[in-house]
């Protein structure tokens, strides 16, 4: 492994000035569960590793003014153990409770999971289904980018040199809505998904009709994607099995998976068809149970 200098700034301003000073010779590190392995495998060879672990204020989970805010340095384990996330943003709980292992979830962060920009990131489909925005800060200011526009390709995103993701924002959860994520994998732990499927559903008052819907797919394209046609099909339609199954077929047509060691193209597509309705039904169950409480 190549040797590097390990820098530990304590404020974002310090981070920005270190990034400017060292430019391409530097690599930002959050939990490090991706970056350290890339350095060990010689896919990365930075001279400077800039750690975000000692910058204060990046690890809050809070619901304020109608917005859910999750700091980029929040560990997956903190999300898994947060009653707020488990009860109201359940797709994110579904994802963070099966990502890696306890040991990995204690270190790895949601910001790192998104910034590595792997098509298999477990937190990406839930965040897309929750309509999340990415808060990005840099030396010259702040910008907010919808997660749907954040990715440019496998391992690529819109972050400019010197920019840092500080937070994710999502609309506050509603009693009439719920979300669910399914990670299809061979092993129960320490595995990447063959595919990942997240569904968000908002129902009418009597629970008979889908008023709003978002469907997100992981490992079904070079980047995590929304299945927009399937969403359109759900909106305004009865919240029943027939509708959900048609949405699954539409999402399967929209998916563009590839053959890989982890799964064949046809299998991934077929599992989208199966899992979209399954997650939609799970959303309905969750909405019904939270309305009873």
């Amino acid at each position, binding site marked *: *492994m190549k040797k590097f*200098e390990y820098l530990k700034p304590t404020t974002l301003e310090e981070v920005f000035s270190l990034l400017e000073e060292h430019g391409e010779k530097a690599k930002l590190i959050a939990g490090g569960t991706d970056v*350290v392995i890339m350095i060990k495998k010689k896919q990365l060879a930075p001279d400077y590793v800039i750690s975000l672990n000692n910058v204060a204020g990046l690890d809050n989970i809070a619901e304020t003014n109608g917005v859910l805010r999750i700091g980029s340095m929040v560990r997956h384990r903190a999300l898994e153990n947060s009653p707020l996330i488990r009860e109201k943003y359940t797709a994110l709980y579904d994802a963070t409770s099966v990502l890696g292992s*306890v040991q990995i979830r*204690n270190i790895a962060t949601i910001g790192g999971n998104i910034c590595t920009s792997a098509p298999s990131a477990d937190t990406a489909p839930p965040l897309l289904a929750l309509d999340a925005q990415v808060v990005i800060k840099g030396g010259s200011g702040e910008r907010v980018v919808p997660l749907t526009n954040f990715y440019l390709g496998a391992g690529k995103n819109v972050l400019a040199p010197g920019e840092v993701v500080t937070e994710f924002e999502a609309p506050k959860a509603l009693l009439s809505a719920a979300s669910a994520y399914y990670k299809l994998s061979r092993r*129960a732990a320490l595995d990447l998904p063959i595919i990942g499927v997240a569904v968000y559903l908002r129902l009418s008052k009597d629970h008979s009709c889908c008023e709003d819907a978002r469907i997100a797919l992981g490992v079904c394209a070079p980047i995590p994607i929304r299945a927009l046609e399937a969403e359109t099909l759900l909106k305004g339609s009865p919240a029943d099995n027939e509708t959900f199954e048609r949405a699954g077929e539409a999402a399967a047509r929209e998916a563009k998976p590839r053959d890989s060691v982890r799964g064949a193209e046809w299998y991934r597509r077929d599992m989208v068809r199966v899992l979209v309705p399954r997650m939609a039904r799970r959303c309905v169950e969750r909405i019904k149970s939270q309305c009873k409480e």
Partner: protein
Amino acid sequence: MKKRISFTLNGTLVEKEVEESAMLLEVLRDDFELTGAREGCGQGECGACTVIIDRKAVTSCIYPVMEAEGKEVFTIEGLLGKNNELHPLQQSFLDNAGVQCGFCTSGMIMAAKALLQENPHPTEEEIRHGIAGNICRCTGYVQIVESIKKASEAVSK
């Protein structure tokens, strides 16, 4: 470059010159000669290097040593009692045949220790979830789960 860091290791404040690009596991093994934590995969996937940092189980093979500064690190060596008596988890692994070749054992016990600190009376499912990051290629896990279950019962008695 070498840098000086200080942290609490198994209850004692330590200070050491370390290579700043090293991972914690290398420093524990090579500089402190604590060889209980082991390198299996070197990528955080097998759990053999599990140690406890600030009460949380982590894979020390991918944990930059510089992040240990000021933290409280526990390794399997820190489990021994004052008179070298075994920790209830260690005793239970012995009594219930939770050890075969032994390579995974230190990591497995440290993962179990972190689990019991968080949840002193886990169900079998919670135990399996808690040690899902630790691979054992010998036992088939049944005796390991039983060892942890019996240890949790022994501690509560």
